[in-house]
């Protein structure tokens, strides 16, 4: 095999995993845009969603029904979080809200395992992991399907938040919360929508990574993959999350293959963070971070 097609293979593999990073980062970005809060509980939501899905499967439900029920559970969860956690804390410092999401994540991890147990479960989505050859490049079928799913979800969510009335209202809330409320945008509703979207994302991420790693506590760590993506792309930019996810995906794979041998491998796990820190030093707001629109 030529060097070039090997290189392409690495790049494509990186892009595919990058799409998943983008997806998870999008969950954070939406919540951050709407409320200025870094949602520490995103990882716990991934675990909660995956456990709920597998739990319904174990009841003997078909996959589509388990998916819909798990999705419904995530939406109910979003509304419950808005009512019981966010609404009482309106007007509090962002740090207090951040701590509330830490509490929420501990609760969700405990609650999910209380209901569904702590056993590690396998999850078979029925997609084979055999590589297929596309234009001379070997691509994992599973990665490809996961990436397509994630890409569709990213496209749908970003179209929703760019072109619909609710999306416009979300951007208004992100710009100026009080002014948006005064203009008639109910903050609670917007929050429930973005937490619902984050729940949806958590479910898809939980399925893909659950199928990879098994449905277990380690899934909560998946969300950490989104951190460098957000640092790179900016905490409040949807476009930034998309580009940064792909950049991180590709660069960590390239680094692993081409730099790894010189430092004894294992680069993939820390390279994104190193890249993110480097960007942080040069552009603190991230590549796409809120370039605040203002007259000069």
């Amino acid at each position, binding site marked *: 095999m030529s060097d070039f097609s090997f290189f392409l293979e690495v790049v494509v593999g990186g892009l595919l995993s990058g799409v998943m990073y983008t997806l998870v980062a999008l969950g954070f970005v939406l919540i951050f845009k709407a409320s200025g809060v870094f949602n520490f509980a995103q990882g716990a939501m991934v675990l909660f969603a995956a456990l709920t899905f597998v739990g319904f499967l174990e009841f003997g439900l078909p996959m589509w029904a388990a998916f819909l029920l798990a999705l419904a559970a995530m939406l109910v969860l979003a509304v419950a979080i808005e009512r019981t956690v966010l609404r009482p804390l*309106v*007007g509090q410092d962002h740090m207090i809200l951040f701590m509330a999401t830490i509490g929420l994540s501990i609760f969700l991890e405990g609650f999910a395992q209380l209901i569904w147990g702590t056993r590690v479960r396998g999850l078979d989505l029925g997609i084979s992991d055999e590589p297929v050859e596309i234009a001379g490049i070997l691509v994992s079928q599973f990665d490809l399907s996961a990436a397509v799913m994630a890409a569709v979800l990213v496209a749908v969510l970003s179209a929703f938040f760019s072109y619909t*009335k609710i999306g*416009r*209202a979300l*951007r*208004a809330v*992100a*710009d*100026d*919360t*009080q*002014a*948006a*409320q*005064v*203009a*008639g*945008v*109910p*903050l*609670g509703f917007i929050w429930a929508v973005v937490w619902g979207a984050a729940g949806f994302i958590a479910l898809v991420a939980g399925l893909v990574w659950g199928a990879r790693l098994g449905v277990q506590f380690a899934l909560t760590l998946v969300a950490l993959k989104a951190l460098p993506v957000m640092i790179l792309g900016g905490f409040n930019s949807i476009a930034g999350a998309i580009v940064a996810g792909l950049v991180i995906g590709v660069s960590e794979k390239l680094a692993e293959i081409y730099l790894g041998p010189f430092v004894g491998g294992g680069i993939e796990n820390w390279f994104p963070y190193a890249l993110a820190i480097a960007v942080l030093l040069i552009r603190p707001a991230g590549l796409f971070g809120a370039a*605040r*629109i*203002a*007259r000069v």
Partner: protein
Amino acid sequence: MNEQGPLLSIAGIEVMYSRLALVLRGLSLSVPRGGIVALLGANGAGKTTTMKAVANLLRSERGEVTRGAIHYDGARIDGLDASDLARRGLSLVMEGRHAFGTLSVEDNLKVGAFSRRDRAVGDSLDMVYRYFPRLKDRRHQAAGLLSGGEQQMCVIGRALMARPRMILLDEPSMGLAPLLVEEIFSIMRQLNAEEGMTFLLAEQNASVALRYATYGYLVESGRVVREGPAAALAADPEIRASYLGLDASAEPGGATLAARRRPRWLS
């Protein structure tokens, strides 16, 4: 509801921030249907706090109405969510021109119609562009890039998109050139005459406000210290001296009315 009573009435409200700073101390006022009422006062008198109390925005600033009641159209509104008021036809135009900077002018206006369920939003957009033709020229521009006067037009237009019966206008003249101030105030008067909208107008610039308002209240340290028809207030020698700067004997900076009436050691 109560067709005869005032559209907005504030009865003896006290407002505290962070449970310790008492900012409004029993402030009362009422705004008749179809009126333009001016709320006058110096920096820190409590005008904005009054507006935010009506719009239910205090909670997000750790403020709270601790006494008194606010009625709009005959019903208490103290407990409602800030966004419910838009649906009831009460819109606040906040002090300091809070346009959504990253949204286009037209998107800003459309957000103003968020609470509406009817299909006539396009008509309202046309109406706003009729009153503010400059917004139409700039409709695809990000609102953050507009001039101060255009931003003020944009946020007033956004309030109009909710088809309000009453608009609370907080300090629309702030930082604008005199000509632009007149332009904005005469549009307010036009809206009042043509669309029957009621206005409560908070202003430091008493001389302009009293020319456009029908009635006025003067606030000092969270209380109403003087009220009356706009013409009477404008003619009041003490107000002329302290707030209109028309009296040669007025101290620089303008002492407050209360301070002038009382010996200093009592205040």
